[in-house]
Structures are given as C-alpha cells and as structure tokens.
C-alpha cells in the first residue's frame, strides 16, 4: 500500500497544480440560468484545450486515457485551487459520457464525446416519472417504432438541469406487453426536437434545479438508441454505477474543504459570552466527528479507485454516494446551526448567504440519484447478497 505518488503521479499532480494555479477563473460563477451555464461551458473548454478534460476517458474519445487514480489526483488539485465544479455539465461528464463510452455506437461516440469534453453539450437524465420514482421499472413514457424513428409520448420529472440542457438520456417503454423492466429502451434525445416541453420546478430552496419534461409525439431517430430495443434496463443499471461511484469522487474531495470552512466558521464566530464557538467542547466534538467522517470517506474513495485500478471493479462504489450524501447533509446543517439566529435569513450576513442555502439544498442529496433507501437496498442485495423482500 502506498499513498506517496509514483514519479508519474507526482509529475501529473505537479502539472495539474501548475496549470490550475494559472487558469482557475477568478470571477464568481453567476448564480443561475444561461450565464451560469456559459460560465461552466467556458471553464470546461479551457480544461479541454489544455488537455485536462476527461482524465480517465479513453484517448480515442478525446480523453487523457489515464486511470481513476489520476482522475482522483486531478480532483484533489482542483479542490486545492478552488476550481469550479462541473456544474451544468455534471451529467454530461459524469454520466452521459461514460454511458456512451460503455454502450454507445461509434457514431454516437463521435457525435457526442468530444463535444461533451469541450463543454459544447449540456446533458440531462430522463429516468424518473411522476409514478416511477424509486421504482424506475414502473415507468410509463412510451416509445413506438415508426419507420426509422421512435415516437415518444409521456413525461419525465425531477430532471436536473433539463431547462439548461441540449441533450437528454431517456428511458422509455417500447414494449408495453413485456413486464416491468423488460420492454424498456434507452435513447438519447435532442431537447430541441419538436414536441419536447420543459417546465421548470422550484425546489425548497426557492431555486430551479430540475424540471418536468413532456413529450408529445417526439420523433427520435432509431440510431439514437443506446443498446438495442428492449435493452434499456440493462443500459440504465450498468450505468447507474457511474453516478453512484465515480461521479461522486470530485464532490467527496470538495466536501473536505467545506468541513474546513465549517471549522473555520466555528473559530471565527463567537457565543453570547464572546468566546469562539470552537471553544465549546460540544461544538468541538461535533466538528471532530465531521472531520473524522470526512477523512474516512476520503480514504474510502482512495480505496475505491485503488481497487478499481487493480481489479477492475469495487463494491465500495455503491457506498460512496450514500456516505457522501449523508455526511454532506450533516456538514451543511452544522454550518447552518452554528449561525444560530443569524441563520434565520439567507442574506443577513455573508456567512448566512453561504451556509443556509447550502443546508436547504442538501435535502436533495439523499433523494436525487436514488434515495437513501434505494441505495441501501442496492447494498443489501447486490453487495451483501441479502434476499429481496
């Protein structure tokens, strides 16, 4: 076992640090809408042009062809230099790209992968429906083959970023006679296709993170199917792993920084007697717990990329997402709670503006990308081999 970098890893990290130190945008990210998306795309383009996009993607698709270990090193350096997150490109980079690499056709890869790495395509998922949340196999959105097209009618919901996206991954029912997850197909759809309507949904933090998407006779060319007709469940399940494991690595590293910030908050804020909050042993114990869990999660992420590199897979992938989601909630809640009464507005102080919205947003962590309950089902059944209910 070894944490010390190999000469190659060291060189990679040094180059990354050197580049990031000069290229991380100094201007703040716009808070919403198209300006925000433009910011994210520009930052991605900057990385792409310098060869830092797609660290672990194969070279033939425009990536750097390295392993998850280098990807992790890149995330560590990004956190160190406070680089912007993928933002609206999260699904494109974290999910759609890997899906196409794993299951796409050559044409699909050529059409999309480099474009994704360049930041030219914003993607959204399209899995959940009003009646199919945790139970994806119950989805009803229908796709009917009509010549060389699939004609789609129905609706998807809780689609993060749909209102800002160019493309969408779409799981639809193409064989209504087949039971549940049989008879589903996985397609990709250009969101400018006629018949697509996107209605933003406001979340509990007062912002629009996701939308409901309606499909009214939307014609998708059959060449946009990923996998064959009826292979949709297999494609979706294979690829949910990306979301639950690798896609979370970057956020894990960023969480460590946030824990530091909460510790700093406790050192700078004072209680009613003018003492820093950090002098309370109740606060200190709580922060120590967060720090310990943060380090443990970091260690688990390192163990995960190590195992993947050495053996090709790791069941720790299914654990990183729920552990991250719940720790992140605790960290953000702690930040908000340390504010005391200052936490009752979202703009009364700079600290409130930072920590209160983050706390509210964190309620989505244990719901999106599979609820905490579904993640536990996955671990119980697929990792531990416990029987289904």
């Amino acid at each position, binding site marked *: 076992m070894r944490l010390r970098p190999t000469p190659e890893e060291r060189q990679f990290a040094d180059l990354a640090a050197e580049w990031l130190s000069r290229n991380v945008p100094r201007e703040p990210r716009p808070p919403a809408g198209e300006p925000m998306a433009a910011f994210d795309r520009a930052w991605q383009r900057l990385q792409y042009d310098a060869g830092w996009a797609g660290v672990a993607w194969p070279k033939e698709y425009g990536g750097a062809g390295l392993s998850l270990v280098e990807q992790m090193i890149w995330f560590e350096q990004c956190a160190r230099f406070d680089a912007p997150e993928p933002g609206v490109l999260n699904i494109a980079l974290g999910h759609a790209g890997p899906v196409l690499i794993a299951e796409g056709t050559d044409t699909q890869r050529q059409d999309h992968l480099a474009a994704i790495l360049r930041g030219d395509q914003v993607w959204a998922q399209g899995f959940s429906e009003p009646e199919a949340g945790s139970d994806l196999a119950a989805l009803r959105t229908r796709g009917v083959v009509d010549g060389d097209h699939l004609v789609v009618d129905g609706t998807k919901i809780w689609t993060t970023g749909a209102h800002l996206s160019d493309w969408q991954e779409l799981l639809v029912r193409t064989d209504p006679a087949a039971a549940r997850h049989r008879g589903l197909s996985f397609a990709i759809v250009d969101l400018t296709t006629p018949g697509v309507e996107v209605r933003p949904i*406001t979340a*509990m933090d007062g912002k629009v993170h996701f939308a409901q998407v309606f499909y009214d006779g939307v014609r998708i060319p059959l060449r946009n199917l990923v996998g064959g007709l009826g292979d949709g469940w297999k494609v979706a399940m294979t690829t949910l792993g990306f979301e639950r494991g690798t896609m979370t690595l970057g956020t894990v590293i960023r969480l460590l920084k946030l824990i530091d910030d909460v510790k700093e908050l406790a050192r700078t804020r004072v209680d009613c007697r003018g003492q820093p909050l950090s002098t309370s042993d109740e606060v200190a114990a709580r922060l120590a717990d967060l720090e310990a869990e943060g380090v443990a999660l970091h260690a688990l992420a390192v163990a995960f990329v190590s195992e993947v590199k050495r053996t090709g897979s790791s069941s720790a992938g299914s654990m990183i997402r729920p552990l991250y989601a719940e720790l992140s909630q605790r960290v953000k809640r702690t930040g908000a709670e340390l504010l005391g009464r200052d936490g*009752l507005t979202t703009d009364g102080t700079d600290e409130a503006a930072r920590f209160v919205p983050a706390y509210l947003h964190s*309620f*989505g962590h244990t*719901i999106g990308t599979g*609820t905490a*309950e579904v993640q536990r089902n996955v671990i119980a059944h697929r990792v531990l081999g416990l029987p289904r209910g």
Partner: protein
Amino acid sequence: MDLYPTDEQRELVTAARAVTRAGAADVWTAATGQGWLALGLPEDAGGLGGSLADEARLYAEIGASAVAGPVLATSTAVRVAASAGRLDLVERLAEGRAGHAFATTGSVVAFDARDADVLLLVDEESGSLRLVPMTDAMVVADLTPLDPAVTAERVDLSGGEVLAEVTGAAAEHELVRAAVLVAAMLAGITNAATDLSVAYAGLREQFGKPIGAFQAISHRCADMAMRARAATAVTDFAAVSVDEHHPDARRRVAAARRHTETAALENTRATIQVHGATGFTWEHDAHRLLKRATFLAAGFLPRTAQTEALTA
C-alpha cells in the same frame, strides 16, 4: 391528574383548524375574530381568561399550519402592555400587529416588523420585554427570511422611545409563557409532519404497493408518531404545570421546549425524505414546516438556556 383535553379545548381546536387549514389569507382576520390574541389575557385586562393549556392547544394548530401572521409576538406584546398598565396600548393592539427581535439596541434583525405597529424587543440576558413604536423609517434593509411566511428586516433601534417594559418576575412569566407556546407550535409541526407522512405513505405506490408497506418508511412513520404523541403530551404537561404553579414548572417547560424542538426538526426532515423529490419542492408544504420549525427553534428559550434549566 388528567391530561385529556377538555371539551372547550377541543372546540377551540376545531374552530382554529377550520381557519388555519383553509389557507393562509384570512388567518389574521380570523385570529382577531376568534380572539386568539386575547385568549390567555386575564379578563380584567379585556381578555378571555383562558389558561396557558388552552393557549397551547391553539398554538399547536397555528404551528401545524405554518401560517403567516405574528400571533405569538402580538399576543405577547398585548400582555406586556397590560402588565405595564398601558391599557390604551392593549386596545390599540387589538387591531394591530407586533414584530419582534431578540435584541434591544443598535442595528438588529427583526421579524414581521415591516407591517407592524410595535416591535417587541426581547432581552433574554437581563430578562426584560420592551415595546417600541415601529415605523418604516426604522427599516434599514429588507432581508430574505428562511421561513417564507415571516418577513425579516434589519431595523435601527437608535430612536429610543419605549412604549412599555416589563422586567423581573413579570418578564420571567412572559418568557416562560412564550416558551410554552413555542413548544406548542413545534408540537403542532411535529404532528403535522407525521400526518403528511402517514397520508402519503398510505397512498403513494412504488414496486406495486404503498410505500408505507416498506419498513424503511413505516418504521420512520412510527418514530414520527411517537415523537408527535410525546410532543403533545409534554407541551400539555408543561402548560398545566405553569398554570398550576407546580414547583417543577420551569424544568418541565424547558423539557417541552427541547423535546418539541428536536421532534419538530427530526419530523420535518423525515417528512421531506418520506416524500422523496415531491417533498423537496417549493410547492409541497414540507419545507414550510421545516423552516417554521427552524425559525421557532431559535426563538424563546433557545438551546443553551434549555440545557441550563434541565441540568440545574
């Protein structure tokens, strides 16, 4: 020994619920119409002479609906005015509203102050309650409140005029009453979050059955129900103890305040999770309950003061 609600209390709750569950628009009118502000005020001060236990049952309904309108601040302001002998002010406030702030000098954050006639200033350190006149000119900045059903303002208190003030035992009594009513509102939220969860768990189907058939949901609902029942009981217990001057009243109030705070925060978080993405939307009531619970938790008798009373 009888913590079963009286017929009058149950009628009071039914009447209040008819208003609060109907929608927020007319609540303030109804509140004055049903005499909410005067319910606990002694009859000789123009009130209805209800007990704190009566008020607690009413405030549970107010909490459960997370409606707008500064009922606790205004009813407390009325009492401060009465206690300070300012019966003219009592009368004026029958038609008015009070904002409130937990500070007495300088530039402070107040709540529901924009449309208020007076501001209730609470000084927990020294144990005093003060009423000052409120004008728009005092508002330095409108802030964005966490709880969308209140308003938040940065207010300049340098004007200095004081309409009424209570200190000492009288202030202490008002602070204890307010803490019980905060607990009552939190208990109401705890119950409301439980009801929302149980109703949704019984209806929403996934995997071919209602989600309430899965222990991940049903056991969480059971936990919520236990917290809710205990929250109601401990609030009644504290309120009656205050009404009867029980020697343990202070400790019981702190217990009610702490139990309901924990319960309300746990249950509102849990109900968001039970509702899944729906519970994360602005449109659903879950977040309003959570935010109201957070708002109340920071109110009268906050955590450090509870700890002190409970470990004394």
